[in-house]
């Protein structure tokens, strides 16, 4: 007996981003090419190799969560809770009407609660074991994002936390999509959060070549002749992922559906170099086949845009392999250039951007790529938004180690 296939809708959006807090502010900035990358202000950067990032300014945790909870959790969780709250309101969902065993949360995160953790490691080593906060493990472990959301909203269903470098935010959506399709849940608060702008972390990441050094806020320019790396970001994106009929029955706003998900791996380990676009193309193919998507249906492809020449090249190669002759006709964009790479939040913010793009029939631009490398022959939406034609957006995300994740969204 074959069960009718369950469809997966997205019914609510929540955003905490460097160029806007809240869905409206975020879309307004993003569609106008407004960058949130600036000089870091939360701590001095004089002795650090990099001083610019997509920092979320003017975020006051107590505006979204009570003071006691804010004190016991890290900034990454503040972001996650704030974005979850907005998404739930946006979805107009009344959790009291839902069976709590059918509601869950899947939140991706990469670095954990860095700021809280390092403060407590310092307390341990400087003042002694008993000076460490009893809340350290809870604030630090990335599981606390989905965990606090589930406690706060009384969610007894399917809850997961995953980590996959900068592709985690897309994987979270893929995981939620899979869980809803197989009936493990009906509603999942899904997304990614990251707050890794912390001095030690910046030193580690810049040394490893995982981000640019310096103080130029415009230096992150994927597919540019001068592309030399990315700038970091922080923030959170949350989508309410919901079984389609369930959404229709409660009259929920429906932004779109998740119709395909592909995931492969280049398997190059910890070396910061992608070797070819072959595996990434396989992930694209998986997502498109699952969603029954032709290249002509694709309104735009939101790219990973790592701005590392080897990654840029292999991303273009993957597009060529997948789109073939349709390559030049398919618009592409890297909205992350306005936010910095917000690691686990990146993929979800790209998905939210895609849904708002579909809703507003507008493709958001890529900024700073003033000298687009002609060898790529990319149809890149640059500097200004462009009218969107079509009903499907593909989002690509890659991670150090070799992860290639592609998500397909349809209006």
């Amino acid at each position, binding site marked *: 007996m074959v069960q009718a296939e369950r469809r997966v809708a997205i019914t609510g959006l929540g955003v905490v981003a460097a160029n806007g807090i809240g869905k409206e502010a975020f879309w307004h900035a993003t569609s106008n090419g407004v960058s949130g990358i600036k000089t870091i202000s939360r701590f001095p950067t004089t002795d650090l190799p990099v001083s610019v990032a997509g920092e979320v300014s003017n975020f006051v945790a107590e505006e979204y969560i009570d003071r006691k909870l804010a004190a016991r959790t890290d900034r990454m969780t503040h972001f996650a809770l704030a974005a979850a709250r907005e998404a739930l309101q946006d979805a107009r969902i009344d959790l009291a009407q839902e069976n709590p065993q059918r509601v869950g949360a899947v939140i991706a995160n990469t670095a954990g609660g860095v700021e809280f953790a390092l403060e407590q490691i310092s307390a341990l080593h400087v003042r002694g074991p008993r000076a460490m906060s009893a809340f350290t493990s809870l604030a630090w472990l990335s599981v606390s994002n989905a965990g606090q959301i589930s406690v706060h909203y009384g969610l007894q269903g399917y*809850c997961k936390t995953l*980590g996959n470098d900068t592709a985690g935010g897309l994987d979270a959506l893929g995981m939620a999509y899979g869980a809803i399709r197989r009936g493990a849940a009906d509603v999942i608060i899904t997304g990614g959060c990251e707050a890794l702008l912390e001095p030690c972390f910046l*030193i*580690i990441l810049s040394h490893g070549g995982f981000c640019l050094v310096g103080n130029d806020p415009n230096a992150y320019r994927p597919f540019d002749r001068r592309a030399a790396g990315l700038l970091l970001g922080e923030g959170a994106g949350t989508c309410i992922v919901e079984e389609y009929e369930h959404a229709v029955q409660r009259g929920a706003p429906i932004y779109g559906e998740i119709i395909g998900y592909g*995931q492969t791996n280049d398997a190059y380990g*910890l070396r910061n170099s992608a070797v070819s676009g072959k595996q990434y193309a396989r992930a694209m193919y998986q997502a498109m086949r699952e969603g029954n998507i032709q290249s002509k249906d694709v309104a735009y492809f939101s790219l990973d845009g790592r701005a590392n020449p080897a990654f840029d090249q292999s991303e273009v190669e993957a597009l060529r392999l997948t789109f073939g002759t349709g390559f030049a006709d398919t618009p592409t964009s890297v909205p992350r250039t306005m936010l910095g790479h917000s690691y686990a939040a990146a993929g979800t913010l790209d998905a939210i951007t895609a849904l708002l793009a579909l809703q507003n029939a507008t493709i958001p631009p890529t900024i700073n790529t003033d000298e687009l490398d002609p060898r790529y022959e990319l149809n890149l939406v640059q500097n200004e938004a462009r009218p969107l034609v079509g009903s499907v957006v593909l989002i690509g995300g890659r991670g150090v*180690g070799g992860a290639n994740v592609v998500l397909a969204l349809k209006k």
Partner: protein
Amino acid sequence: MDTSSNMKSVQNGKRRVVITGLGVVAPNGTGKEDFWNACVSGRSGIRRITRFDASPLATHIAGEIPNFNSEALGLTQEESHHIDRGTQLAVAAANLALYDSDLLNVMSEEERNNTGVFMGSAMSSVEEGEKVWISLTNRGKRAPRDLVDDIVPDRLILTYVPASAISAHHQLYGPCTGISTGCSAGADAIGQAFWTIQEGRADRMLAGGTDSAICPTGLNVFSVMRALSTRNDEPEQASRPYQHDRDGFVIAEGAGVLVLEERELALARNAHIYAELIAFVSNSNAYHMTALPEDGAPLQQLIKQALTEAQVMPEQLGYINSHGSSTSPNDAAETAAYKAVFGEQAYRIPISATKSMIGHTQGAASAIETILTALVLERQVIPPTINQVKNDVRCDLDYVPNVARHATVEVALTHSSGFGGVNSALILAQANWQNGRQI
């Protein structure tokens, strides 16, 4: 392939998944046989900590992996120097699992396109992270300063690294992700991998968990919560689930990796099948970040759901590998849940808590426990819960005290509860168990 075997290869419209390889690096044994023999003879891997001077802390004991020889376990020199210990344990366990499954170095590119890796980890490379912080800040004496020579940038402090390192070592191109649901991470990685094969997104998956956090921060984050046993003078007796004087869990390091395979492929290559994975369920406490409510209600729900999904009657359950962490609240809540679900039957199901011997390996725990459960099904022997001397009056079930025993086990349950409130369960069945179906 004849059509009748095609019909058997699908259950409820989904592909069937079997376990064909096991790799484990545990405090009481490295490698499947060493680990099994240790568990069956009730041997503890808990000792006084040697990795650092733990005297300033309240707890001086842990489950360390003694004499871990990375190169003997197949790691390259580069891997042995540039990746964190937890990831090294994971790669070693993966190597052991692939060797055990007869898939080491023999898979074609096409097969490797369809093989992925999901690994659970709770605390990642805490030890290395702490050392980096110490260098950058001179142990907290100054603000972090860029020190070019002092840090090794490859040692990333991130939870997906084990999965990534395994896929790189074996050139596996399928789905690859890290799961970090605390102490349930291993089970979640295995469960998600199970679903991945069922859904046709992969044909084989390496799945399991790893953790290594035996360092000042790793211990102290739990010490300050008073979660760790301080039975420093009797390390081997410190992890004592269900005992009236249990005083917390014992932290440990380790890794466990299973090879999960689509059943038809396993049969076609005459693979050794330890057990079949029948069901994976998980839920959330929504109650507290670290504890179950006293009646174990979410656990009751979890177990019922698992049995339903597996289409197994309570009487068919031959063994439970419990979470049994040796903390005061957990063991009682767990027992309360079993009684609520099984009634009188609860007294007839043998239960053992592996943590009594190896401590709590966090992200690896539920993976190592799943490995043990698979071996129970293969060998029809149940390892004991050790340190059973005088039980908590509320904990009066059959925990297979101190001595292993032979038993008929066709279906088994293993479950875990993690920080963050996720509870996960896996149901495994004997390789040839047909549950009343015609063969």
